[in-house]
């Protein structure tokens, strides 16, 4: 773990911020995560990279958890502050040989969209569809980064009260068993989505998951 300077820290929604730091001088693949913490806390948590693999900074998309420990501290960080970063870790990555030829379906809840944003920014020619389950409208974060026809959201607690879960949207969609399915976010969404994909004939070998909590 080394210390890196915070470059900027921007609120993208009431509860979520984008933390930009200096980039560790190591090879990084889109989809990997880092351990991030502060010296004062002496503890850290894992965060998926939100930025493109070859950006000269690292972005993290972080939800501030009520009575959390690390997220409130990271949320308070200002440009010039130091954060401790270890990694990158993990293999929640795209198979290189498939990137140019195959299609991908990304299914996220909340900040689980982070690795998918990184994939899409790293490989702009990617043939993808992104399903994003969020609680409120303002959690679409930087939705301009996605082609509108490829980005589908489900808002569970909208202002008008007619909420819908991402799993309900998925159960109405056509599923191509040849696509690669990547699931990221909370366990409940992942468990429910796997069930839907299996019922639609998507083989287990085509499904990869990263659980956040």
């Amino acid at each position, binding site marked *: *773990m080394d210390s890196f300077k915070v470059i900027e820290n921007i609120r993208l929604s009431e509860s979520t911020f984008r933390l930009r730091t200096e980039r560790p001088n190591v090879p990084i693949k889109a989809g990997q995560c880092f*351990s991030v*913490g502060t*010296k004062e*806390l*002496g*503890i*850290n*948590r*894992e965060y998926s990279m939100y930025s493109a693999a070859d950006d000269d900074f690292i972005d993290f998309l972080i939800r501030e*958890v009520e*009575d*959390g*420990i*690390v997220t409130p501290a990271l949320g308070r960080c200002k440009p010039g502050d130091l954060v*401790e970063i*270890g*990694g990158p*870790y*993990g*293999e*929640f*990555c795209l198979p290189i040989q498939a990137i140019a030829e195959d299609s991908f379906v990304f299914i996220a809840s909340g900040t689980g969209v982070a690795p998918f944003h990184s994939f899409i920014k790293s490989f702009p020619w990617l043939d993808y569809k992104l399903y994003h389950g969020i609680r409120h409208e303002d959690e679409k974060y930087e939705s301009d980064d996605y082609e509108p026809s490829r980005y589908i959201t489900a808002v569970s607690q909208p202002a008008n009260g007619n909420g819908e879960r991402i799993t309900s949207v998925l159960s109405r969609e056509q599923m191509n068993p040849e696509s690669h399915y990547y699931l990221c976010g909370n*366990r409940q969404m*992942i*468990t429910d989505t*796997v069930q839907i994909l*299996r019922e639609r004939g998507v*083989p*287990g*070998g085509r*499904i*990869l*998951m*990263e*659980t956040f*909590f």
Partner: protein
Amino acid sequence: MKVAISYPPIVNDQGQKAMVSQNRNVQFFQKPTYLLPVIHAQAATALDQAGHDVYWDDGNAQLKDYDKWLSDLVAWQPDVVVFESTTPVMKFYWKTSRQLKELLPSTTIVITGYHSMRRPEETLDESDIDVVLRSNNLDFVLLRLVNEMATNPFWRMTSDIEGLTIRTSETESRSTGNFIQVEPLDKTPLIDRDLVRWKDYAYENGNFLNTPGTYASSVVRDCMFGKCTFCRYNGPDLTFSMMSVERSLDEYQDLIENHGVKEIFDDSGVWYRGREARQFAQGIIDRGLHKKGCYFGINTRFEYLDEETIKLMAKANFRFVLLGFEAADDETLMRLNKGYQMEHVESCLTWMTKYGLHPHLTIMVGYYWQTREQLDLTVKTVKSLMYRGLARTLQVTICTPLDFTPYHQECIDQGILLTDDYDDHDMSKLIVTAPLPHDEYYKAIREIYSITFNPRFIARQIMFLGKMRKRDWQFLFTYSIRAIRRVRQHIFNLTRNEGKQTEAERVSVSA
């Protein structure tokens, strides 16, 4: 269906028994520790609750010899026998499966565990095993499989339960695809303690400060971190599942109030952190379970638990905390993906000991890159932590490539493995080329263990034990005897190959 969940007694040429169970590195001990294989126990419970006839068949914990184990199993005439694999016992299982098939030709043999999971074809080629269950969520998958076997005579050809490699003929097999990585742990049953004869495991476990002790149904399956290269919980096809806090609390309450348990250990790779850790500790206090004379223990990693959480856990009567302290030098930590810093190791241990927890360090030596400086730094740091009373007990193992973890694969790719005999992966000796003569690593092990006999350390230990709430001298005595016995066995096992380095190893060392 009649299903036997079987752990045959495996005895080596020194007359020592192997301890095999989930994510524990197999080690051979004269006087073994009996560890309840938690996920297999949940699988047994799930099968039993579904109406199958389950035979909990742990030959080790039931003190059987091999012949007695075999004859009892054959007499029971199971439809299905389930084993658990790991590298150093693979050859034993291949042989045992052939013997079993001769005696029970119509029985289906299923193997679980990380070695077979990573090499299913090898297992089927080398043995008479019928099914490789390639998932750590074996309680879910085994139940689906046995239910299907009961109703579908063509299951070998038609089953689409994910995570299996099934033998379809003497030479052919088929895979049913990747397993589901995240299963809802709230839907798998809590262990039926009587079914798995929990008392067989309640006393002979060196990590229990109090007895009878038991293992909880693990709250985290695989690992939330899951990135350490030497660990079985690391893989692109692995993430983690978690049980709800309330459910785990219910189990603890049942164990304490209905079974009289005095120590509960949760063997999850890494236990809850953050909010769940606090909710759990608070739940123990709210239910009054911290006042029932029962200690709680967990595995965690450095830099996961903060001071407030540790304080609350201590109040809730947590004691034994196992922490992987794999090395003290940055290069090794980086190569292992370990990601902790010495500064924070110190603060974590300071918080733990300040509030009365009992940190137990698990240390490793013998990495294929480990230099004199790196080894010395680890020994020096461990000594310093122990003498300053920042950790209470420790265990040292030789880092052994196992079960095709990334570290194992690295050793294979780099051509530095000194053996291709799986029996040699039993953690009793170094099996990789390394920068130092192997004896230097064995010496380091001896040196680390000798800390526990140092008067400075013993004085600290007595002060600590005297401070424990339970001022029971018989307990202090029994625990100390068990601890010393364990240290002596470890020293014997890990250093019996001292001075036996072969010519081939010497050549590769000096090369």
